């Protein structure tokens, strides 16, 4: 089985003497559903950031989808990110763009033509039950709706890896269930690797998952 993430003695820090993740060694296989839990400030979001290159390894090696993240060039990083779908806790939608265009963003970046991307966006908006909101702008939507838009955007370009940072943190039950079912669907039907950073693992998940817990800078595999 191919490994999507390989970390060897990985240390992460924002400042030189403030290590957040210390000498972690682990790997995540392709097609796995992974939860990373930990207390607030434990470094779980920092670890997720290192997977999409927003923070560079201080020490050790990190490889994502076969791309070495140590001193990665901008062009390589852009290439990698075009194959990753990211869901943020604060949604990170472009306020001046319509919902439809926001979902289309990864397709625009990957250079898909209007017809192909239009059909894909309509399909995804249908999955997140927001077809009727396509022409609206993010500030006109509720938090739950915005997160569903962010979820649709993360899936738009059929990524090999989905990274989700507290995707249901402040959401209502309905929006949370839509998000989890989409993540499960991507994992089971498309074999997409899903890595979710969260405080609590939801109950009733149908997919088998791996669970890492971060404590005092160490990453421990729980199950």
């Amino acid at each position, binding site marked *: 089985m191919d490994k999507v993430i390989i970390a060897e003695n990985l240390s992460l820090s*924002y400042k030189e003497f403030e290590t957040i993740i210390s000498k972690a060694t682990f790997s995540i296989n392709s097609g796995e559903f992974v939860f990373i839990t930990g207390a607030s400030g434990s470094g779980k979001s920092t670890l997720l*950031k290192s997977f*999409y290159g*927003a*923070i560079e390894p201080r020490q050790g090696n990190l490889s994502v989808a076969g791309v070495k993240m140590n001193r990665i060039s*901008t*062009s390589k*990083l*852009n*290439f*990698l*990110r*075009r*194959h*990753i779908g*990211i869901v943020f806790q604060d949604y*990170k*939608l*472009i*306020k*001046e*763009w319509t919902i439809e265009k926001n979902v289309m*963003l*990864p397709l*625009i*970046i990957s250079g898909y033509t209007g017809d192909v991307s239009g059909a894909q966006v309509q399909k995804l908006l249908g999955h997140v039950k927001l077809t009727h909101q396509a022409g609206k702008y993010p500030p006109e939507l509720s938090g739950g709706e915005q997160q569903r838009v962010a979820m649709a955007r993360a899936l738009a370009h059929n990524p090999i890896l989905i990274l989700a940072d507290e995707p249901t943190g402040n959401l209502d039950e309905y929006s949370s269930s839509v998000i989890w079912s989409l993540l499960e669907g991507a994992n089971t039907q498309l074999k997409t690797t899903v890595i979710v950073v969260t405080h609590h693992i939801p109950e009733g998940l149908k997919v088998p998952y791996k669970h890492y817990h971060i404590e005092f800078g160490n990453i421990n595999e729980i199950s």
Partner: protein
Amino acid sequence: MKSLKNHISLIIALFTVLASVQIYVAVDRTIAAYESHLKNDYSVIVVANKAFTPKEFTTMSSMIERSEPISTAQVLERLKGEMSEKNLALLKLTLPKFYRIYLNRFPTPNEINNLQKKLQKNTAIERVEGFSQTHDTVYKLMLLFKDVVQVFSIAIAAVTSLLILKEMRLWQFQHAERMNIMALFGAPVWLRSAVLFRLAIVDAIIATLILCFSFFIIDYYGILTLPLKEIGINVQLFNFVNDALRSLAISLGISIALTFTIVMFHSEEE
């Protein structure tokens, strides 16, 4: 409204740079036209003890366009009644040769001095009169004005460039969120900053159009050209093809270069 204000600020700044460049060009053209006007009336007088051909003069200095001998017949005619035939014939033989030398441009006082020195190196030339003391005062004032305009143009260009840079920083802050989000999904630099470049290009075109319109009005109503005509200067202050293209090139150059600087120094949010 805020966005419109930002646009207007950049357009005004770009227009100021273009206007200062255009004013400098217009002053330069006016001086060139005045130089040509003065040149036609200006000549150097040479007194020589032998005859010179026009070619001999032109080889002495590249500034010399042509020369013509000054006839002494009129002077001798006036003396006919006062002198005997014999003395007049003797005087005619001993009179030096006079030449009027025309130059290919209106010289500066230094150039007149250099020309005089060059000509006087020839032993057959006895005297050169450059009339440097009557060198046109208006021309000197215009040269001074040109220098002042040049200094002002450079100062205005520097200050407005800083203003444009500041304006673009504001743009960067306004667009930073969108640029960061696009970067997170792997958008290359050109794609995430496309809006900035588009705005810069649009504003550069608008600034150029305003400049063209302003100079069209100045030209159409003869606001500057009529007073200049009165002092014998015929000049086209704004050339609608060359000047418009140059202004557009400057405007686009400044705005694109500054946008590029902003984009290059943009640091991605972690």
